[in-house]
């Protein structure tokens, strides 16, 4: 066990406090300016299975109180050991327990309905879905509007996600319940909070 997990423990933030704070600032900016693509503000070594953007987001936000669910394409022993060591977060199998869920943007998002969507009293008790992509693209794709967006703007990913935008639209209908979306690539970050309306 100790030999095999060793390599994946390397990496993480160079400076835990400064890097996590910097990433947190970037996430705040991404959330308050939805559908805007930001460069990842830190360099981070990610384990096999996770993109650097995802590793940075999880090391910033995840801890022992936030169970993480990994889709099969991200679920490697290296990723598990890395998250447990650097974030101290439990990795869970049950979708409904996850506070963060990580998956490829190409995955069929039908299962997102099974994640915690919050309640009318506590809409914050819901999952945040982290979607991994090769590249995040501004000014193309569907049009987004809502709080934090002065003029409606476009945003999409490099891949052709089959059902993503449909699920984002369906999520809009649940407001104030629903999930929030964070998009990551190797070097980028973007977010669509549940308040952001999609026009398909």
């Amino acid at each position: 066990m100790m030999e095999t997990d060793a390599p994946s423990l390397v990496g993480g933030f160079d400076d835990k406090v400064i890097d996590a704070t910097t990433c947190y600032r970037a996430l705040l900016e991404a959330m308050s300016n939805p559908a805007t693509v930001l460069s990842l503000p830190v360099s981070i070594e990610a384990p096999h299975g996770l993109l650097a953007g995802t590793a940075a987001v999880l090391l910033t936000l995840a801890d022992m109180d936030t169970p993480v669910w990994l889709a099969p394409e991200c679920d490697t022993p290296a990723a598990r050991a890395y998250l447990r060591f650097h974030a101290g977060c439990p990795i869970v199998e049950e979708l409904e327990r996850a506070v963060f869920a990580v998956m490829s943007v190409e995955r069929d998002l039908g299962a997102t309905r099974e994640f915690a969507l919050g309640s009318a009293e506590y809409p914050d008790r819901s999952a945040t879905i982290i979607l991994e992509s090769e590249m995040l693209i501004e000014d193309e794709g569907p049009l987004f509007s809502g709080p934090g967006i002065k003029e409606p703007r476009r945003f999409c990913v490099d891949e052709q996600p089959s059902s993503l935008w449909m699920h984002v639209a369906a999520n809009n209908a649940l407001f104030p319940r629903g999930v929030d979306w964070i998009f990551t690539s190797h070097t980028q970050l973007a977010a669509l909070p549940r308040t952001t309306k999609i026009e398909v």
Partner: protein
Amino acid sequence: MYVAVKGGEKAIDNAHQYLAEERRGNADVAELTLEQISEQLSHAVSRVMAEGSLFDSELAALAIKQARGDLIEAIFLIRAYRTTLPRFGYSEPIDTAAMALDRRISATFKDLPGGQILGPTFDYTHRLLDFALAAEGLTPEPAEKTVETLDADMPRVLELLNDEGLIEPAVKEEELADSSVGDLTREPLEFPAGRDLRLQNLARGDEGFILSLGYSPQRGYARNHAFVGEIRIGEVAVEFSPEELGFSIEIGDIKVSECETVNQFQGSKKEPAQFTRGYGLAFGHCERKVISMALVDRALRWQELGEDKVAPVQDEEFVLSHSDNIQATGFVEHIKLPHYVDFQSELELVRRLRANALQEQMEAAE
């Protein structure tokens, strides 16, 4: 409404400097070391650890020194400090049956397996001031020791009653509808709270408040005659399971006090006559606190046992909302801070009311 007040910076700086000098006191007198505090004022340290809800005797000693012995101020410092540290996780539940005992007594059974161990207790002292202590350099005789250590097997006293079915069994976790463990340092307290949250709240609650509340059922408010089934004081191992290891390891030992009470119970519509139990557990050596806690815990279980709610000690919202001395002192003491604008508006209101009343009187007189 709170309105920011500007100014006073110089005066505040000077007040802090004055405070530092007063804390130190006469510089001709040797300064207290943290070791002196933790070794010689260990009950004060225990209280700060229990109510500060942080087991670290060195930090507690520092807080006591900085607070000039004001224990609630020291607890405040500890509570503030803990917010600066990351939480690694939750321990496995400590096993108090495996405690390395300093003390273990029962008021209900004289011949219990393992015996009654008095330990370093104030009980049976005459409460006469010892003027020999006022003289310097008094080193007590070393404590007596036996050749043999204590029995390895020290069964829980209440389990003896349990064997006969005379006492309610401890509620096992599997029997609970919700097996999650509430944490009031993470989520705000909501009512009704489960026993988990009640015990957490009481374990860090103010000793004086819990003591007085625990006293009240003894005096007849929700009367419930209680005996101390067992008190245990000593060290227990803490086991923690780091995510990256996947198994639990012992990270050290902590000193705790534990009390379990046996309470008379006449039976109710729900339960046959039997003994019931109350539970107290806290950091450090704090026997008074854990006895009181067990009494309050038992009183708060009225609903579960089908009793009537007739007294303040049974009122969960009242007890849990007022037990925390940092919350309490924060709100009580804040009224001394500048409220000039609030008070100005109250002044004007009272003046207006008086003027109106005067006018009405004059009109009535005409």
